[in-house]
């Protein structure tokens, strides 16, 4: 369970995030939607203890994220390409992340093997460094790295952007499977309303740092979202 309480973030006098209370139960697939500058990435960065909130705190499975680092062992995340190590090959990168998450090389190899279809033959064994891969392929590698080591919480910022249609569909399938057993909590943000309604059972709309909608996904959700953003 992720519990966020009175989280605000101010830069000077400008407030970019102000979320009074947000609770994401274990096993939920949670979608964060909003225009540019709505505070999605800021929220994720605070959740990952990459920036400090001006006030409030977030607990991730009873761990206050900026007080203990225990959450790191069960949280996998991919925010953007700067999470990749450009001079490694994808295999080496997976091995590195796997190492940090207590997997040996064989574990990593067998885990990665599941994603052969997802990679579509463009990631593994290509003799290319991550920095030389296309944006979409970098993203594929980053997403899979976030899933290494059976994390209880998976955080993906804009996972659908830059992906080709086939991979988008495969990613949706993967994310749905993850939350099937109600064990893994998945948090995604997206600009693509239809993807997010497909994957997430709950969607929160942020606008200028404030939660303006919080809804269970249903038949009408997509319509409602579209009318909300059609200004």
């Amino acid at each position, binding site marked *: 369970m992720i519990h966020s309480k009175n989280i605000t973030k101010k830069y000077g006098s400008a407030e970019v995030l102000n979320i009074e209370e947000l609770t994401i139960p274990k096993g939920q697939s949670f979608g964060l939607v909003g225009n540019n500058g709505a505070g999605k990435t800021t929220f994720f960065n605070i959740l990952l203890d990459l920036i400090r909130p001006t006030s409030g705190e977030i607990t991730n499975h009873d761990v206050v994220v900026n007080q203990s680092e225990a959450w790191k062992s069960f949280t996998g995340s991919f925010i953007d390409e700067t999470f990749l190590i450009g*001079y490694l090959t994808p295999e080496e990168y997976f091995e590195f992340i796997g190492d940090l998450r207590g997997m040996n090389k064989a574990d990593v190899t067998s885990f990665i093997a599941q994603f052969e279809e997802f990679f579509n033959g463009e990631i593994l064994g290509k003799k290319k460094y991550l920095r030389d891969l296309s944006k979409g392929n970098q993203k594929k590698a980053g997403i899979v790295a976030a899933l290494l080591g059976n994390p209880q919480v998976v955080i993906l910022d804009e996972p659908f952007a830059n992906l080709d249609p086939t991979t988008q569909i495969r990613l949706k399938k993967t994310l749905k499977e993850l939350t099937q057993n109600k064990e893994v909590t998945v948090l995604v943000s997206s600009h693509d309303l239809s993807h997010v309604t497909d994957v997430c059972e709950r969607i929160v709309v942020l606008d200028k740092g404030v939660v303006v909608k919080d809804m269970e996904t249903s038949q009408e959700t997509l319509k409602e979202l579209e009318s909300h953003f059609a200004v």
Partner: protein
Amino acid sequence: MFTQFFKLEWKQYFRSSYWQKGLALKIIMGFFAVYMMASFLSLGIFSFFILKKTMPDADPLQTVNSFLLFAVFGDLIFRYLMQKLPVMNIKPLLILPVKKTKLVHYVLGKSVFSAFNIFSLFFYIPFAVVLMKEGYDVGGVLGWLATMILLTQCGNFTNFIINKNNIAFWSLAIILIGTIGLQYFGIYDATTLSQSIFDGLVANPIYTVIPVGLLILLYLVNFKTLKGQLFLDDAIKEKVKEANTVDLSWANRFGEMAPFIKNEIRLIWRNKRTKTVFLMSFLFVLYGLIFFTQETYKNMPAMLVFASIFVTGGFVLNYGQFIPAWESAYYKMLMSQNISYRKYLESKWFLMSIMTTILFVLATPYLYFGLDIYLMIAAGALFNVGCNTLVLLYAGSFNRKQIDLNASGFGNTQGTSAKQFIIIIPVMLVPVGIFYGFYFFLGLNAGLIAIATLGFIGLVSRNYFMNIITQKYIRDKYAAIHAFNQKA
């Protein structure tokens, strides 16, 4: 149209990260640039008189002439290794309504002013001025100077033609080494050939038309080839190097440090700038030769100790001072992983210590200069491992400048701040100062023992200091993440 291009160049230059620096750094770099130019200029001005003094029987111009052929070949090889035609920055212009011929003229024309062509002028022009002042035939000297400038430009354009060709490089290298070899063993004297060519030129400046013709020809060849290659899959292609993966599983024995050590090795080997730093640290081993061979320094042990610290300190100093900025690009990711900061930092300490040890072993031949020198190097090495590693790790937590690993390595100062200059005080001046204090009152051995003891204390109390450093890194985490996110 060309004024537009010129404006673009202007902006590119003054908006480059080169100028986005603090004032202090700009001033220091400005001084350095002026110093370099002044030294080249004075070389140009004084070489005439130096040559005259050392070889009173020979005509200085003829002496220079006899080596010019080597200079031309050497220049070509140097260019082959270092100079590339800057085609990438016309990529955005390709889809605009600009004639391709114009783009090609622009790229080629721009290369005329590249630093590779300007540098040698600092020698040739003052040398020619001195020649004229010393009463050489003005027409002859001007012809000679024009030829030298034209030949430099010919080298410029020849390089772009042969640059993609390894055979050309090896033939050049073989010709150069071959002639030097033949010269050395007295089989064939290329200096005579060189001298007769360029002496003839001074006598008959009209021959200057030959390099003019050559230059025009080379330009046309370049123009034609490049015009046919202005495509994204040809000349304007980002070169993608094939990944070479080396098995580093031997590093697994380092336990929790292993993933970091493996990563660090790849970091160093696969990025230009880190690789340059790594290779440079081996050159630093030779630094002592400058000091140990000169009589002047024999009675200045403080200077010798200074040099001794450098001999084994190349890696610690150059690599260590940019920890953890080397990893600025993905520092965020590291901080969101389940890592032990302690092991992360320890892996860096370990790497620096190993490298210092290797450099120390490589420095063994310094025994030739006597036991005193060798002991100085040993004391310096111990100080580097014991103290400098820790000081630099601690100082690293103050690093707030992002480093782009993909940028070139040579003379790249990205990530440099005033801190990099201040750090010289504890890592270089303090040990020299302490040495000098003990040396002054108690003699050479006492001075060396003092430095070595400091290093030893650092080594023994490493645990204590590593704890402090780790705490500091944890405290500064957010500031570092924030700063590393800002593109330099």
